């Protein structure tokens, strides 16, 4: 399944703001990202699939899904 990845903040600085990537579910996507971008290992971020926050990493991904990686911001 090719999905579209959008990354924000510090995460986007590591992965690039947008990329297309093959993944079956969030677990495999995460593993793929970590091997491609080892710097992500110690970063905190949430997953949103098609603009809905997802905590269950077994969620299956479909072709053209948009997965967003959202880190916490603290500046003010």
């Amino acid at each position, binding site marked *: 399944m090719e999905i579209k990845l959008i990354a*924000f903040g510090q995460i986007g600085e590591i992965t690039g703001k947008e990329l297309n990537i093959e993944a079956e579910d969030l677990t495999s996507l995460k593993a793929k990202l970590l091997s491609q971008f080892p710097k992500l290992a110690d970063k905190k971020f*949430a997953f949103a699939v098609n603009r809905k*926050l997802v905590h269950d990493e077994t969620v299956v991904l479909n072709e053209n899904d948009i997965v*967003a990686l*959202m880190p916490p*911001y*603290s*500046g*003010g």
Partner: protein
Amino acid sequence: MENYNERYARHYALSDFGFDGQQKLLQAKVLVIGAGGLGCPVLQYLVSAGIGRVGIVDHDYISLSNLQRQTLYTTVDIGKPKAQVAATRLGEMNPEVKIICYQTELNSKNALGIPAEYDIIVDCTDNFAARYLINDACVLLKKPLVFGAIYKYEGQVAVFNWNQKYQVNYRHLFPNPPRPEDVQNCNEVGVLGVLPGMIGMIQANEVIKICTGLGEVLDGKLLTFNMLTYEVFTVDISNENSVEDLIPKNREDFEATDYEFLCGISIRNIQDLSPEDFIKKKSDKYTVTVDVREIGELPKADFNHINIPLSELNDRLSELEDEHLILFCQSGKRSLKAAEILLEHFGNHKKISHLKGGIIALQERNNGKNS
């Protein structure tokens, strides 16, 4: 029209807002926590709009480097307390608003008391300890929370605890705080002055929408705004993951929680020194002050110290013979890390402290003092 007030004539004229909308603002009580980059625009617009009562919480003092974005303050205010200066300026902007100034740092002892007096809480702080503290307090108090935060050219806004049926809070987004070394703040990464202005204004807009029932509140949604592209990305925050266990159950549990410790900003047995305490203590007997930054980092320290970079600390522990070790770095994160290493090695045989906020905080304090 009874109670007609020319000041709000443009609100009265606005369709779907009108006199009734204004009356709702006049009855509202809003607490703004943090009077910095986000807090300034939030306060200016809420006070101008005629919110009935506005509380300001801030313990910080105005420094020169604040002025490129903290638009309530002027050059002559440097060194003065933010909450007080903000209250005075806002009182001039709209003397009809009751403005209450809390020149104090919110902590688990006062974070249930102060917000309890208000209808809506606005988080304009700049660190995770404060953000988790405020989130948990608002969950316990069942108060709507308008969250705003920035990073470089992006900002986030969300509204929590508003919808009583579908309760979502910050912990549904990020259940636990990140480690401090994984987070950069404005002091380190910089910020373009208009960004907190834009994000603060979205927060102020959410407050007005909550008060008046106008439009759609960002309830349980996280909005991310990119100022370089004007792209807005909004996601629904789900409350499927249970976060109840992460939030203190009651007042007693809450008051016993050390949020700075949870967020890794302070560590037991390591003393945090304010710039004032640092200046006093660095020349004490049997004390050595250690710069743990890498060689050549600026600004240089203009007081007596030795330099052992964090990267070499483990190999150079034997050089530290004094009883009291005071560490410092740029922002206070590496010095805390170094203090942990020393605590591990020396245990309670030495007294270990570090300069909270680093040399940046020291410099800002000195700049404030000199002007």
